[in-house]
């Protein structure tokens, strides 16, 4: 029997749910009804077989990305590679760090190619690819922990903003993190770039050697993890305010580097109830549109 992905509208009749193996997409398109239908059909068509495409190169995708060359064939695989290449010279990173964003981008691309949409998003487990036609905007809720409900704050992305990708990484998600951040949300030009950058920044929010942090080789948890025997964070115990500030600053430094290199547009880092935001002054985006007031009082602006 040929494995078919799950393709279904959600109960609201508006959103499309696509699932195949570990890929789980929530999609919404707005526009004329016929365009939305065509877009959804295009999404489902592109989605069918996509996982097999990726798995055909899974062994290579799980290897450290080579900065100089890309031997990968698939369009999504190559996009994953391109997204992580800027980091590959400085640290260990595999194309898998961008898989969620790259898939979201691919599906959104198929939809926008097939139909004229006012706006659309493809949300791949929190890594989101956006389409905004002129005049359209998205409100995006930031959650401090992916495993819990509750929106920390919302931000609005307008068509004129360069942002078309949002991704969140941290130690509570489905993937392992080398760092201790509860969540790092990155806004970038594409979803795959945001995905890779969020991973890198979340890894940098760290206190190496701190006794309250419990770590474990990734392959002891998932034998075929692309992280091999690298230590991933399991538990974070009580941290002092100084520790929290120090860890956030380490992540913020990394985020500022990526911002300066044009790899991200903004980032929000969160650890143990404290927040650091990067890119606010440069874009004005977070400062002006993130729900402000009291919520900002506890944040650390860097």
């Amino acid at each position, binding site marked *: 029997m040929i*494995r078919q992905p*799950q*393709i*279904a*509208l*959600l*109960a*609201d009749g508006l959103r499309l*749910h696509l*699932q*195949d*193996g*570990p890929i*789980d997409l*929530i999609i919404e398109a707005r526009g004329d009804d016929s365009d939305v239908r065509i877009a959804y059909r295009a999404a489902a068509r592109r989605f069918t077989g996509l*996982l*097999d495409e990726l*798995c055909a190169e*899974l*062994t290579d*995708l*799980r*290897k*450290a990305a080579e900065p100089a060359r890309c031997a990968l064939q698939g369009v999504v695989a190559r996009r994953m590679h391109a997204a992580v290449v800027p980091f590959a010279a400085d640290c*260990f990173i*595999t194309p898998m760090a961008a898989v969620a964003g790259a898939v979201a981008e691919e599906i959104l691309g198929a939809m926008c190619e097939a139909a004229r949409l006012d706006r659309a998003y493809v949300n791949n*487990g929190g890594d989101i690819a956006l389409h905004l036609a002129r005049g359209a905007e998205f409100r995006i809720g930031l959650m401090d922990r992916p495993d819990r409900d509750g929106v920390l704050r919302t931000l609005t992305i307008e068509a004129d903003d360069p942002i078309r990708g949002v991704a969140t990484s941290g130690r509570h998600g*489905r993937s392992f993190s080398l760092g201790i951040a509860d969540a790092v949300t990155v806004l970038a030009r594409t979803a795959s770039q945001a995905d890779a950058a969020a991973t890198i920044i979340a890894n940098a929010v760290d206190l190496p050697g701190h006794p309250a942090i419990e770590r474990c080789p990734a*392959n*002891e*948890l*998932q*034998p*075929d993890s*692309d*992280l*091999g025997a690298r230590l991933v964070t399991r538990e974070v115990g009580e941290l002092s305010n100084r520790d929290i500030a120090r860890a956030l600053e380490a992540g913020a430094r990394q985020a500022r580097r990526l911002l300066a290199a044009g790899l991200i547009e903004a980032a929000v880092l969160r650890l143990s109830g404290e927040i650091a935001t990067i890119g606010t002054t440069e874009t004005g985006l977070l400062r002006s549109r993130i729900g402000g007031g009291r919520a900002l009082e506890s944040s650390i602006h860097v």
Partner: protein
Amino acid sequence: MATEPADTSADKIRCDACPVMCYIKPGAAGACDRYANHDGELVRVDPHVILQRTVSHGGRLVPFQAIGDWDGKILQGSSTIITAIGAGTTYPDYKPAPFIVSSEVDGVDMVTVVTEGIFSYCGVKVKIDTDRYLGPETATVRAAGEAVGHVTTSEYGSQMLSLGGVHHLTGGSKKEGRVTCDTLMDLSNCKAVELTIDGGSTVVVQAGHAPIVNGVREERMRVGCGSATIGMFAKQWQGKIDEVVVVDDHITGVLSEHQAGKLLDIPDTGIKMKGRRSTPGRYFQVAEPGTGWGGTNISDPLAILGPFDPKTARPGTTLLMVSTTGEHAAYYELDDGLRPIEKEMPASLKQSVERIQENCEPALCTVLFMAGAGGSLRAGVTENPVRLTRSIKDALTRVTSGGAPVYVWPGGGITYMVDVTLMPANAFGYVPTPALVAPIEFTLKLSDYAALGGHMDHVRPLSSIRDNAEIRQRPRTLPEQRG
């Protein structure tokens, strides 16, 4: 980094549900969070889509009846399979089933018709993994002195009981009906019940647990009949022993005479067996059935041997006698008078006995609840009952019991069987009729439901049940019966 781990040790599973092919460690889930390794077995940890599920949020873990016993809530948590447990019903079913639930699955409007069936035509089939003699076929099985069923034809390695049924529930005395009903309900709710068989044994039966026959817990199921055991182990015995007898109430095997021994050129030993020879090396009725060696009544295995043939037998000939489970074993050597004398068993033979034990599976009692939903229950589902029956036969309608899969017997009516251990705890109740109340769910497409004359005006969206979180009294009338 991404090198595949070289060891494929048994505790890890390679999941083949999708092409990612995750290696999953025990207690962990794959990359999708949908499949997990539970004690070395690949299990799906989200609800299966054939039944209803909440689709507003993909990928959430939804354990089925995750915590403890059922507390009376019709729906638990935010996303769960609706079962009929506690749905309530009336008899006769002149009005629509209590809940007819629609939910959206895979873009198809699905309905789950949820009702609790009152079954007077119902019973349990009990499989007891033991060779021990429980009682003659068709003997009456009693609980608290009342007849509740009978011994039926045995199966390979197991004794079978057929309990309940309309005859005992409503055809006998009032007390007989009540005791039968209690027995069925307790067995179905996975509780331990003591049963006594006329002319046989007393056995404590509990679904999913080892049987206790006359106070002795049965540990293992035999590896095969005596003859099969000879066939399996002949090669391992060759060169280590001259003769082996595998004592079995059904077919006792003798190595030197058995085809397996002949093929290995094992010489005759002059052994003489009691009982009726079936084919070479295979003997029926070497003793009476009982709870001794290999399901016979003997405690001294030499009792099934005649004197050795002096023309063939030689002093010093070695003999192993062992039961089909390896539970009993003894080693003998023939003395100058060709009499077998018990001696300390050599280590190599002990090993072979342990091998027999190792090959025996744990003995279990298993209970299948069986009932016919052919009557007015169907009217609770549709105005044209026979169409429901036909729809099930056509596989358009899926039947489940407490969310567990059922086997629907071919032919007329909706007669089904379900493994009670797959159902949530305390899924069964009873009414004073007496009759058992068991959950039954019919799941079908909304359009098919309309086509078979369904109660379309009574279809309620799932959310309406979830929101008011109704709590119903469970239909168990005796508080002490609750687990």
